[in-house]
Structures are given as structure tokens and as C-alpha cells.
């Protein structure tokens, strides 16, 4: 059986997100991750509901697990989960909580919520795929700029850079919410460790697509997707 998937989920996303949040006032752009997720699932990731268990699939790991409305909506738009699941977010019988659980939601690669766990898991996933010769599969992991406060990220940044883990792309959605900021810029934390980096307008889908596919051999890649300040 083949499933026809939308390659442009933009028409459906506002309605799907409203089913989750009940919020009529705010546009989808109120959700910081929606544009990155839309470009990833519409245009970049080689994964569908039919290949969700294929060892060769691309992996997307949502490290910043809080505020997952846009993630659930994109998963529904692409057929990983039924739309009806969106109507009962965090209800007693719901599979969708305020943080996603990989054992409850098809297509979700990791359970997340506590900050600073996704990048280490992504490094391990990339290493595991490499050790098994699955070289087509790429690993994307999405973090927030405030999430980088957690020291565990810096263990992963240094190691992935030092070992040239080039099947890994980290995306940091930067809405300037880190309490003490990142003097000198977020990208510099990665590039000093050997990563390549693109810092782009996180609402610009063409710029996002170019950056999300802009990795180079021999280096892990970073995309800093800058959006309007949370404050």
C-alpha cells in the first residue's frame, strides 16, 4: 500500500494546531518550532508512516519537548497519527501529552521533556547507524536556545565536533529565551568545536531548506533558526 502524503502541509497546519490548543487568536507562527518542523517533514526528512521503522529512515529527535503542539500537528498532517488524537491533548486517555513519549506516539523517535537529553541521544543514534553501515540515514535534532544552558549539550557538542560526526544536524530555534543569553552567538559554541553552521531567518522556508540540507562532509552541521524574541 502506498500512502499519498502532502508535500505542503501549510494549508492543514492552522486547523490541526487549533484542534490541539483551542486557540483561535494566534497564528501558527505563535509556535516557535512550526516552520522548522514543516520544512523538515514536507521537504527534507526521508521518513513516512510506512517507513517509520525502516532502519534506513532519517531520524528527527525533538529534544526541546515542551510545547509540542506544532510537532503533533505536523505528525498528523503527514499521517503518522490520526487527526482525532489532537482533540484530547493530555487527557487521561490521550497518547499526546505536554511532552511526547516515543512509546505512545507513532513517528516519535524519543521521549523528551527534561532539557538536554536529545543531543546526546542523537549522537548515539548517529554512531549506531554508522556502526551498522546505514550511511544514508541522517539524524536531525531540534533544541531551543535556552535548552543550551544544560551542560549535557556541551558534552555532546564537543564530542560530535571532535569526531567529525557528519550524519548529524542540530537545529537550534533561537527566540532569545536563554536567561543569560549567548554572548558571541550560539553558532560559535559549535563551530569552535568543528561544526559547520548556518544562522538563518527561522521563518523563511527557503532559507530553512537550504540550511537544513547544507551539511558538508566531515563535520556535524548546525542550523540556528532565529525567530522573534520570546520576550
Amino acid at each position, binding site marked *: 500500500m502506498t500512502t499519498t502524503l502532502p508535500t505542503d502541509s501549510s494549508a492543514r497546519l492552522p486547523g490541526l494546531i487549533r484542534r490541539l490548543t483551542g486557540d483561535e487568536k494566534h497564528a501558527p507562527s505563535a509556535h516557535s518550532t512550526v516552520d522548522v518542523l514543516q520544512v523538515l517533514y514536507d521537504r527534507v526528512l526521508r521518513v513516512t508512516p510506512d517507513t517509520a521503522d525502516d532502519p534506513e529512515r532519517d531520524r528527527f529527535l525533538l529534544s526541546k519537548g515542551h510545547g509540542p503542539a506544532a510537532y503533533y500537528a505536523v505528525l498528523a498532517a503527514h499521517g503518522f497519527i490520526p487527526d482525532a488524537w489532537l482533540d484530547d491533548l493530555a487527557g487521561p486517555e490521550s497518547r499526546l501529552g505536554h511532552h511526547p513519549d516515543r512509546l505512545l506516539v507513532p513517528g516519535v523517535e524519543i521521549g523528551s521533556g527534561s532539557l538536554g*537529553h536529545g543531543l*546526546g541521544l542523537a549522537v548515539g543514534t548517529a554512531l549506531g547507524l554508522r556502526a551498522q553501515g546505514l550511511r544514508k540515514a541522517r539524524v536531525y535534532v531540534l533544541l531551543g536556545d535556552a535548552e543550551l544552558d544544560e551542560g549535557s549539550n556541551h558534552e555532546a557538542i564537543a564530542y560530535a565536533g571532535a569526531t567529525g560526526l557528519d550524519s548529524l544536524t542540530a537545529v537550534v530555534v533561537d527566540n532569545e529565551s536563554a536567561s543569560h543569553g549567548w554572548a558571541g552567538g550560539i553558532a560559535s559554541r559549535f563551530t569552535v568545536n568543528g561544526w559547520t553552521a548556518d544562522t538563518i531567518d527561522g521563518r523563511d522556508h527557503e532559507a530553512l531548506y537550504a540550511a537544513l540540507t547544507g551539511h558538508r562532509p566531515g563535520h556535524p552541521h548546525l542550523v540556528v533558526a532565529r525567530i522573534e524574541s520570546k520576550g
Partner: protein
Amino acid sequence: MTDMRTAFIDTTTALLDEDPRTALVLADISASQFASAGHRHPDRVLNVGIREQLMIGVAGGLALTGLRPIAHSYATFLVDRAYEQIKLDLDHQGVGAVLVSIGASYDGSAEGRTHQSPGDVALFDSLGDGWTVRVPGHPDEVAPLLRDAVTTDDPIYLRLCEQRNAEAYPGATRLRVLRRGLTNAPLVVAVGPMLGPTLAATEGIDVTVAYTHTPRPLDTPGLRALANTDVVLVEPYLAGTSSALVSRALADVPHRLLALGVGQTDLRRYGDPADHARWHGLDADGLRRSISAFLGSVGG
């Protein structure tokens, strides 16, 4: 004679050669001993540097792709420091790993509290009932337990130490009786390296001594079959770690329980492991005093 750490290194090196599913994650500790294995299997021998949070995160990621990770360091760095990674990057993801520690409660006696982990097994108890905890009491128990561990995808903790019993009992997953007392004799359960001092301490006392290297899951059917009124636990980690399990297993049986093990207090003393065993009352003399007092007390 080979020690437990060497047995672990030799067995893991062989497993890396034999089984392409096996992967080893290190945080500098023991890295030099795995250098030749790393040359042969550069994609499956991964030293992340002194980064224990990442070590467990990487183990979780490897397991998510279908590999069987072994992660290794001192217990205090592997378990205490990376506790939330064990909880979330392994347990919550629904994947397992083989965690192999050295150092135990006070092998690092001269190093001080920073290198000691008497609370590691209690931490696994806080994670639910999924973990198998192996506490070998002899180096010859290490290879079979490790080989058994890598054939599954289960979460397994292997706690190595420098103390050893006189003999190995690789099959003692369940309670194994090594000395049988008379009818209704008290039961003394010795875990891992506590067997040697326990046998010495109970010489000439009418007790049944049973041994296991696997405190989790505890052999509660065996415990119920062997226990009479008086039960003594002798554990090489925090005293009382298994008390709740014993109480639950014997909930419908009138019994008294003495739980011996490492004390809660940071002694702030150095010396050697034998000194710490004595200070915690876990040498033969100390155990004999505690057990005799318990058995001789009212209500026995």
C-alpha cells in the same frame, strides 16, 4: 589471579570480536585497556572523554538503532552522576544497556567519598522493577554474567569490586544454600563479595547461609522457601537496600529482619577497603557481633 575488572575487559574484548551487535561506550576510564579492540572496531568502541552524561545518552542512542551497548566507569560516575540519563535516555526510551561499574562502595578507600558509591543499587531500585542487578562475588562469575547480559536487550547493571569470595558460583542467580542449619535455623543471605566474611562470621552458629550474585530481581520464592523466623541480609552496598523486598516477600509470615550493609554516613576516612569493611561492621568479626546479638535477642 585475574581480577573482576580484567575479566570484564577480556570478555568485552572477545564479545566485540564475536558479536557485531555489541558496542562499548567509555568515559576515559579503562580506555587504554580497550585500545586494541578500538583499533579493530573503531565504530563500536567509543570513548567520549570524561563525559558521563553523554556516555549514557550515546548508549541510549546506540540501543535505539538496535545495537547492544555496554557502558563502563566507576560506579559513582556511571550511576550517581548520570542518574537522570539512566532514567530518561535508557528507561524512558524503552531501551536497555549493560552498565558495568568498578569501585563499588569503598574500593576507592584511599580516594575518598568522591570515588565511592554505596548507594548505586538503591538508585536502580528507584527506577522501577526493570533492572537486573548483578553483584558478582568472584572474578570467574563475571564472564558468564556478562555474556548472558549481551544476549538480551534488557537493562542490566553489573557491579564489580576488588573483594572476592574463595569460590565462584556463576549459577547463583537464585539463592544458593552453601551452609544448611538445623530445622528452623535462621537464614543469612549474603550478596556478592559478602559471602566470604559471612561464612567466616557464622562459623559454628546454627544458621543457613544462602548466596546470590543477583539481588535484582531478588529470588523471593527462594527466600520464602528458606526463611524461618529470623532473616539476616548481608549486602555490600547501603544497609537495608533490600529490606523492603524481603518485608514484602515475607509479609504474611511472622519474621524478624536484620539488614547489614554499608552505613549512610560519609566517614571522611581513607585507609584500605579492609579498614572500611571493619568500620562498617562488614568484616567477619563485625558481622559475627551483629548476627550473634540479633539472634540472641528477645523474640528470636
